[in-house]
C-alpha cells in the first residue's frame, strides 16, 4: 500500500493547523485520502505545535509514528520528532532558524526579499516540501490560491523562490483519483450532520474541543438561517436550548466535560419534561481542567448516568468525521422523535482531526418530526400512549395550552404527588426508552470489521476505532465498534461478538468504561488495552500493544 506521512512543526501561533490543512489539500490533489492529526498545548503562542498528515490510497483516520517528511519551522521540531523519521525520510527546514540535515531553506532571506510577513514561513516550508516531493508547481499554486484568503501574492512569491531553487528528492507519486472532496474536521462534519438533521438553533459556550463547532456554525449562520447564541455560561446554554426546543426550534448545544457538568441539571429537566435536545460532548482528559487540548474517552459512564433520576437518553459515539456527520443527523432525528436528550459523544481526536469527506455521506435532509397532535379534544402534553411518546405541540395553538413541567405531573402537565400517577409517569418514560432501544436495534448500532470467524476481537469505540481496524487487518482480527452506546445495544453486540473467545477492549481511559458496560450485560471482556496520556494511538503504538495481548 502506498502511503506517506508528513509532519510539520513549530511554535503555537505560527499557523501550523492551517499549514497542515494545506498539506492535506496538496496530497489530496495527488490522489490520496488524507488524515490530519493536530497536536497543540493549551496556550496561544510559543508552545510546540505540530500537524501530522497521513496520505493513503483509501480513507483513514489514524496516524503513524514514522514520517517520511519532517517539516521544521524551529529547532524544537527537529529535536522532538527526529526519531520519527523513516528510512529515507527527508527533513525540510527553515535554515535561518534550524540546524539539520536535509532541505534547508533560507526563509529569512526570502521573506525579507519579498517583504512577506513571518507567517509566510509556512508557505516557504510547504513549497520546499512540494518541490522535494515532486508535486507540480501548478498543483501547489492552485491549492495555495484556494486556501490562503489574504496576501496570496506575497505567499506565491515566497513559494516561487523556494520552489524554483529546489529539486525532487523523494517523489510522492500521483495516484489515479476521483472527485476532490472537502477536508473536514469532526467538528465541521458534526455541524453538517446536525444541519442535515434540520438544526435551526445552536447554543454553546466555548470549550475545547467543541469550540470550533460553535465557530463553524456561527460563521455559516446566515447561509443556514441558523440562530447561533453564545450565552453567559453552560447552565444558560442548556436551559435556553430547552426553552428554544419548547418554542419549536431544533436545537443542539456543544461543550466538553466541565461545561457538561453544569448542564446535568438541565439534562434531567429535559428527561422529565420530555424536551428534545442534542448535546455534542467533546471528551478531553480530566479530571477537571486536565489537558484541555488533548483527547480521551472518559465521559461514557458520566454521559449515561448524568442527571438526577432515571430517564431515557441516546448516546452515539462516532469514530471519524464521516460517522460524526451521519450519526449527528440520526441523533437529532431520534431526539425529536422520542423527545429525549441525545448525545453525540466525540473525543478531541474525532472533533479536531480532519479527513477528506465524501459529500455523498451527508444524509438526506428529511427532518423526522415528533408525533404531532391530531387536534382532537384537549391537548395533553404528556398524554399516555403505548410507546410512551406523547404528541408534540409547540405554542401557539389556539384554544390549547402546552404545559411542560419539571415536577412529577399528570397528562396535562400539572404537578402531582400521587403515587399511582408517579408510577404511571415512570413507566411511560421506561416504555419510551424501550421504544428508543428497539429503534436503535434496527439502525445497525454495532459495526463489525474483519473476518466474521476471527476468534479474537478488538472491542472499541470512538476515535480508537480506525487505528484498531488498521492494526487488526494485519493480524486477521475482528473489530467491533458500538456506535450507539446507549440504549446499550447488548443484543447487537452479542451478535457481533459471536464466535469470539477473546475480546480485548481498546479504550482511551484508565477504567475501560465500555468493557464495564459490556460486563454489566454479561458480556465478558478478556483483555484491556488502555491509553491515558491524552494522545491518540499511533498504529505502531497499538500494533505493539495488540501483539502483546494476542500473543
Amino acid at each position, binding site marked *: 500500500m502506498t502511503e506517506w506521512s508528513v509532519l510539520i512543526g513549530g511554535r503555537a501561533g505560527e499557523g501550523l493547523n492551517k499549514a497542515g490543512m494545506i498539506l492535506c489539500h496538496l496530497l489530496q490533489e495527488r490522489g490520496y485520502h488524507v488524515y490530519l492529526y493536530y497536536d497543540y498545548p493549551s496556550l496561544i503562542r510559543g508552545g510546540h505545535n505540530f500537524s501530522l498528515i497521513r496520505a493513503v490510497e483509501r480513507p483513514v483516520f489514524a496516524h503513524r509514528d514514522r514520517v517520511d517528511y519532517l517539516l521544521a519551522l524551529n529547532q524544537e521540531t527537529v529535536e522532538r520528532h527526529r526519531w520519527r523519521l523513516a528510512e529515507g525520510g527527508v527533513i525540510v527546514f527553515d535554515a535561518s532558524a534550524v540546524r539539520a540535515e536535509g532541505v534547508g531553506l533560507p526563509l529569512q532571506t526570502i521573506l525579507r526579499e519579498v517583504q512577506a510577513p513571518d507567517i509566510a514561513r509556512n508557505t516557504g516550508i510547504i513549497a520546499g516540501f512540494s518541490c522535494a516531493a515532486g508535486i507540480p508547481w501548478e498543483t501547489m499554486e492552485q491549492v495555495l490560491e484556494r486556501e490562503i484568503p489574504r496576501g496570496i501574492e506575497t505567499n506565491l512569491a515566497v513559494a516561487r523562490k523556494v520552489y524554483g531553487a529546489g529539486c525532487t528528492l523523494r517523489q510522492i507519486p500521483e495516484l489515479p483519483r476521483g472527485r476532490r472532496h472537502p477536508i473536514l474536521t469532526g467538528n465541521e462534519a458534526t455541524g453538517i450532520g446536525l444541519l442535515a438533521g434540520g438544526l435551526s438553533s445552536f447554543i454553546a459556550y466555548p470549550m475545547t474541543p467543541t469550540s470550533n463547532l460553535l465557530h463553524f456554525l456561527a460563521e455559516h449562520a446566515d447561509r443556514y438561517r441558523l440562530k447561533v447564541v453564545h450565552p453567559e455560561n453552560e447552565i444558560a446554554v442548556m436551559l435556553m436550548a430547552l426553552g428554544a426546543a419548547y418554542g419549536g426550534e431544533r436545537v443542539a448545544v456543544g461543550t466538553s466535560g466541565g461545561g457538561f457538568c453544569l448542564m446535568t441539571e438541565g439534562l434531567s429537566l429535559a428527561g422529565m419534561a420530555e424536551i428534545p435536545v442534542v448535546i455534542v460532548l467533546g471528551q478531553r482528559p480530566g479530571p477537571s481542567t486536565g489537558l484541555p487540548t488533548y483527547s480521551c474517552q472518559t465521559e461514557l459512564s458520566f454521559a449515561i448516568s448524568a442527571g438526577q433520576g432515571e430517564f431515557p437518553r441516546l448516546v452515539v459515539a462516532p469514530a471519524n468525521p464521516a460517522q460524526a456527520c451521519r450519526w449527528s443527523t440520526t441523533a437529532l432525528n431520534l431526539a425529536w422523535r422520542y423527545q429525549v436528550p441525545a448525545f453525540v459523544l466525540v473525543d478531541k481526536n474525532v472533533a479536531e482531526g480532519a479527513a477528506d469527506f465524501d459529500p455523498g455521506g451527508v444524509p438526506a435532509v428529511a427532518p423526522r418530526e415528533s408525533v404531532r397532535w391530531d387536534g382532537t379534544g384537549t391537548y395533553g402534553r404528556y398524554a399516555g400512549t403505548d410507546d410512551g411518546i406523547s404528541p408534540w405541540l409547540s405554542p401557539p395553538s389556539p384554544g390549547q395550552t402546552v404545559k*411542560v413541567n419539571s415536577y412529577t405531573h399528570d397528562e396535562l402537565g400539572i404537578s402531582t404527588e400521587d403515587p399511582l400517577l408517579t408510577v404511571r409517569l415512570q413507566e411511560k418514560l421506561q416504555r419510551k426508552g424501550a421504544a428508543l432501544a428497539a429503534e436503535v436495534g434496527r439502525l445497525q448500532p454495532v459495526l463489525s470489521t474483519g473476518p466474521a470467524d476471527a476468534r479474537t476481537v478488538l472491542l472499541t469505540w470512538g476515535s480508537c476505532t480506525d487505528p484498531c481496524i488498521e492494526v487488526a487487518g494485519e493480524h486477521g482480527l475482528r473489530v467491533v465498534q458500538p456506535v450507539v452506546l446507549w440504549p446499550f445495544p447488548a443484543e447487537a453486540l452479542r451478535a457481533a461478538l459471536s464466535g469470539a473467545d477473546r475480546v480485548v477492549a481498546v479504550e482511551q481511559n484508565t477504567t475501560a468504561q465500555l468493557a464495564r458496560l459490556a460486563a454489566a450485560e454479561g458480556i465478558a471482556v478478556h483483555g484491556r488495552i488502555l491509553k491515558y496520556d491524552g494522545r491518540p494511538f499511533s498504529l505502531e503504538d497499538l500494533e505493539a500493544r495488540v501483539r502483546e495481548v494476542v500473543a
Partner: protein
Amino acid sequence: MTRTTLITDARNTWCPGCGNFSIQHALKAVLLEMVSEGLPLEQVVLVTGIGCHAKMADYLDVNSFYSIHGRVMPVATGIALANPDLTVICCAGDGDAYAEGLDHLIFAAKRNINLTVIIHNNRVYGLTTGQYTPTSPLGFRGRSTPRGTVEKAFNPLELVLASGGTFLARGYTRKQPMVRALIREAIRHRGFSFIDVLQICATYNDPHEMYDRLTYSLEGHDPGDFDAACRKIREWDYNREAPIALGTFYSVEEPSFEERFRRTPQSPAEREAAIRAHLEET
C-alpha cells in the same frame, strides 16, 4: 370551560394570606383584559422557577414551562428566541432569581430581551421552609441563619439597572391594583421588563405592617430620567427602614435581543441546497 377564568383545576395550596394570591389575581386580570383587547391567549407563555411562587404554572391555564430553581431567565430567553411573537412572562422567586440564578437575570437585562419578569419577592425561601434570601435584611433569622444573617441585602433594582434593564418597577402585594397596572405596562414594554413585587409570606416573613407604613406611590417621577431612577431606587436599600417607592422607576426603548434572531425557517430542500453549495466551496 376553565379557559374563561384562566384557572386550572389544580388544587391551590398557598397558605391563607399569602401574597401570591394577589399576584395571581393581578396577572390573571391583566391577561383577561389583554385577551379581550385582542391578544390571542395562546401567544402567552408563562415560565416559572421552583418555589411557592412557581405554582403559578399549575394554577394559570396558559402555556407554561414549570422549570427548575433559578433558571427562569434562560428558559424564557430560549422561548423568546424561538418565537419573538410570543408574550413571555416570568414568575420567579427571590431565591430563584436573586440567589441560585442571579447571573441569568443580569444577562437577560443586559441583552434587553423582551420578557416580563415578575419577582415574587417575599424575601425568604418559602417552599424550603424559611431561609434568608439575598433581599432578606441584615440580621434576618431564618432556618439556616438562626442567629441572624451577617450580610446586607442587596437592592435588586440597582443591580438590574446597572445591568441594562429598560423597564424597572416595584409593586407590593397589598396594593393589588397597582401590581396589575405595572404588569400591564411591563408586558406592553418591548424589551426587558422587571417588576420587583414585595410579597407577603404569611408563614415565614410578613413585614406588612412595615410595608403598609413605608410604601408610597411614585408621583411626578419621570421614568425616562436615569438619574432620577437611580435616586428613587436607592431611597430604600432593603435593609434599613426608609420610604419605599412603588411604581415605575425607569422605562426607555432600546433594541431588543430576540428581534435580531428572527429567521424564516429553511425548508428541507433549501437546507439541502445550502449544504451542497457549502461543501462544494470547501
